[in-house]
């Protein structure tokens, strides 16, 4: 085995992917060749340093940041806050009360004008004001 061939096998040797005969051939070359033995030692220590690198954790709040971006880009279609049932009920009730009040006021006004017209009177503005009061 020559030096180039020996060094080509370093990765497969490190990852234990060589056949037993290849391992035997490489190891006997390394035992006999100081240059390749030094190269292998440097390779092995390089691999130790790489596998010793720290793992970095994701920053805190990643989920919230992603959801906020999606909410903004989807114009609130996704990840919008859902109103609670009681809040929805309160809003609907308030709107209904407003509608009833408006309807009551309109109907009261119409009824008063109709009664006055049936009496043959056309109400003046003052009478209308008085009636409203």
């Amino acid at each position, binding site marked *: 085995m020559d030096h180039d061939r020996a060094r*080509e096998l370093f990765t497969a040797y*490190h990852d234990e992917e060589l056949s037993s005969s290849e391992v035997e051939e490489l190891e006997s070359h390394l035992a006999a060749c100081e240059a390749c033995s030094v190269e292998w030692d*440097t390779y092995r220590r390089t691999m130790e340093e*790489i596998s010793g690198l720290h793992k*970095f954790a994701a*920053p805190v709040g990643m*989920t919230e940041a992603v959801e906020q971006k999606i909410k903004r*880009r989807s114009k609130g279609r996704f990840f919008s806050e859902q109103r609670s049932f009681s809040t929805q009920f309160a809003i609907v009730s308030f709107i209904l009360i407003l509608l009833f009040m408006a309807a009551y006021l309109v109907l009261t006004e119409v009824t008063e004008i109709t009664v006055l017209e049936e009496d043959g009177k056309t109400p003046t503005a003052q009478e209308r004001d008085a009636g409203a009061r």
Partner: protein
Amino acid sequence: MVGNAEKRLVRKLKARAPGAFESLIKNHQSSVFNLLYRMLSNREEAEDLAQEVFITVFKQIEAFRGDSSLATWIYRIASNHCINRKKYLARRRHYDSKSLFDMEDRVQPAQGKSPISGQVPRPDEMAEGLQMERLVQEAIFGLDEEHRLVLVLRDIQNLSYEEIEEIVGVPAGTVKSRLHRARMALKEKLAQHLR
């Protein structure tokens, strides 16, 4: 390729079920962030890009067919984003690694280097370790894109050759030759610090 638990999660994700997306992010955020951090050498870029990766996952989950694992699919999205961001940053000539190696970023000390009781490293050892880690990261960052990606996926993220083939989209032989070249290039760069 996809287990039952993962199938259930994918079904929930496709149905936009509450909590499903949060669960997916929690499961994969650190591996995605670590990959991007090692590839880009910049904390802010890695953080921003990790968010974009999960936004893409959210938008494209309908297209996930389960031919590969969810993790592999997410890694593929992350790798593609990373390549595009590198091109963008290269156009802007952006490079800044000053925020790398902040102590608070570390959560999982590497195998064999864990400061267990009675073996807490001295300050000088810690400084030496940090210096070496910086040298290794700079050497990795000095590799070209395709070699760096394969090396990070295999030797830092500890993925199998099969998973890397699926992520990078090249045959096993190409993955192995890129990995070999990447490791040999790193060996040359680090040799003077290791002898």
